[in-house]
């Protein structure tokens, strides 16, 4: 990145808005679609001001029908546009599951590249904001298991904009998950204009020799805090932000685990079938002999995300992460 690039202080949601703005200006094929994204600017204001700036054709309020507008988005993507579709909350993507599973992800395969679906689906996910039920799901794994779509998830404003632009530029469908509880929790300097974070690359957030802590999205601040606190106990954690959930950055995991021999994976989703298990598989395949202890997974439980009165108990927290770190250290 050139040092002459101007930056601006932004929250994560502002960085998303700025990324959308940048791409609407940059490529006339970009169209935004979704519920309440027009005048209202989205229920979280991700698209605030964009309909005013680019018009109703570029920023379209759709009827309340996720299958319908994702399906229509596929038709538009095949026919020359770059739809960026907002699903109001990840928990409301399920009606569109068939369209994503049977078409968005398979049209390239089906036609051997003749038709492709360069589409981005944006969705806020996760618990911790006292929202009603279903608004709090973290079901990335039902998409990472689905070949033909990539899944990314930023944890900070800089990555949010860079990953979003990379996703829009990517020739294939991308699910772009937004950590709703981090939307406004911090601000940081974000470059103006266009820049990209490479999809498929994680990032080392803290260096350390003792334990590899792997997480992403809304769990990152908590994982970082736990790692920071473990220093008091003399334990140096290496913290990795995956950023892309499919395809996961295998190399960054292998390299770190081969150094530390100990792993703690932190995610909000249920343990069974969660992405933690994909990380276990990468360790199994690349770093078997380096392991000094069984990896620990600190995850949401194998229970539905509860009503918000219970959510503080449901969500992984520093206590649980630190407990797991101690466990892999003491094995």
């Amino acid at each position, binding site marked *: 990145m050139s040092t002459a690039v101007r930056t601006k202080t932004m929250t994560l949601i502002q960085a998303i808005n700025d990324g959308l703005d940048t791409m609407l200006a940059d490529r006339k094929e970009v169209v935004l679609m979704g519920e309440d994204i027009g005048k209202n600017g989205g229920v979280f204001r991700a698209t605030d001001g964009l309909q005013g700036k680019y018009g109703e054709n570029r920023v379209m309020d759709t*009827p*309340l029908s996720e299958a319908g507008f994702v399906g229509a988005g596929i038709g538009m993507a095949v026919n020359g546009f770059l739809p960026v579709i907002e699903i109001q909350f990840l928990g409301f993507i399920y009606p569109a599951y068939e369209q994503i599973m049977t078409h968005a992800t398979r049209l390239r395969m089906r036609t051997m590249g003749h038709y492709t679906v360069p589409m981005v689906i944006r969705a806020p996910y996760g618990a911790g904001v006292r929202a009603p039920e279903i608004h709090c799901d973290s079901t990335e794994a039902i998409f990472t298991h689905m070949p033909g779509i990539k899944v990314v998830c930023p944890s900070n404003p800089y990555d949010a904009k860079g990953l979003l632009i990379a996703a829009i530029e990517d020739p294939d469908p991308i699910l772009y998950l937004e950590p709703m509880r981090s939307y406004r929790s911090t601000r940081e300097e974000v470059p103006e204009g266009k820049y990209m974070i490479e999809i498929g690359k994680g990032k080392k957030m803290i260096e350390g020799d003792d334990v590899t802590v792997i997480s992403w999205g809304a769990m990152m601040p908590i994982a970082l805090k736990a790692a920071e606190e473990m220093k008091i106990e003399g334990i140096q954690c290496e913290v990795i932000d995956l950023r892309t959930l499919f395809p996961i950055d295998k190399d960054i995991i292998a390299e770190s685990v081969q150094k530390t021999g100990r792993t703690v994976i932190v995610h909000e989703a249920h343990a069974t079938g969660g992405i933690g298990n994909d990380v276990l598989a990468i360790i199994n395949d690349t770093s078997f002999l380096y392991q000094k202890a069984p990896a620990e997974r600190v995850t949401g439980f194998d229970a539905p995300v509860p009503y918000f009165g219970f959510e503080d108990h449901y969500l992984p927290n520093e206590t649980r992460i630190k407990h797991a770190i101690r466990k892999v250290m003491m094995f």
Partner: protein
Amino acid sequence: MDNQFPIQQIMDPNGIIVSPEYKEKITADLAKSFYRQLVRIRMFDRKAISLQRQGRIGTYAPFEGQEASQVGSALALQSSDWMFPTYREHGAAFVFGHSLRNILLFWNGRNEGCIPPAGKKIFPPGIPIATQIPHAAGAALAEKMKGTKNAAIAYFGDGATSEGDFHEGINFASVCKAPVVFFNQNNQYAISVPIEKQMNSKTIAQKAIAYDIPGIRIDGNDVFTVYFETLKALERARCGKGPTLIEAVTWRYGAHTTADDPAKYRDQAASKSRRMETDPILRLERWLKNEGLYDEAWVRDIEADAAEEIEEAITEMEAFPPADPADIFNHVFAEPTWQIREQKEEYLRLVGGVST
């Protein structure tokens, strides 16, 4: 098409009965019981908003302006019928006999709030839009298969009509003549999206034609029309004649939820003038006055009773035991799987709780 589906009205905004055939049916007792419920739920709604502002409950979905639709339809039910509300029909659920404490618990993030009083067949408020419509069709079909005369009512908004589940649920019910009433509250907005962007049709009632079932468009702010039309539709359902689609045209004065700012997407002046002209409570008040039935003392009594009842429910809600983390694990399956047993045990040990 909209002239094929005129808005039916029994009482006009001035509280004048414009469908004289109903004059006899509208007794003082009936009207007063409607009035009492309208006031009760409006007072609750306003109180809930203020509780949310004080941080005593979570995000809340108000219904002020839609009371006649909720009261009229809920009172038309028999007590053994099924109710499938959304997040906006706690007014109807309350009128139908739900516990106010539980309604408040629901809005305070507690599953306990989803449990209706014993014997009351009320479903938890539907969150994913339109998904309750097939449930109502199925529950109604089950009643028919059991040979009862019970029916079901499914509530949903204008926006919900765009979802596949609306279509699939009504189609299913129409094919098997399930005893169910599909009760649409067309408040003309789905959050910020006005009905013109939601659908190309001018009415929701006309969508009934797709399923060859009766589609009725009514003034949703006229509690009499709502009551009598719902009653008729339920009667048809009980007689084996299948489902009816009712479109109750109404308006919410306030925000979609307490997290929403309607000024972003519509001119709030419309709400103001509607409040003066077509308000469901004011309208019934005008009728009561026209009939000489309006009695200030009686109204004060109603209000005092409601206030007391609401305060009591708030007290109960706030005295309710704190969320027990064990409950996260206790109701996933009838018998917990080993994953759940292990996770529960480990977590409770960690937070120093006792496994329950």
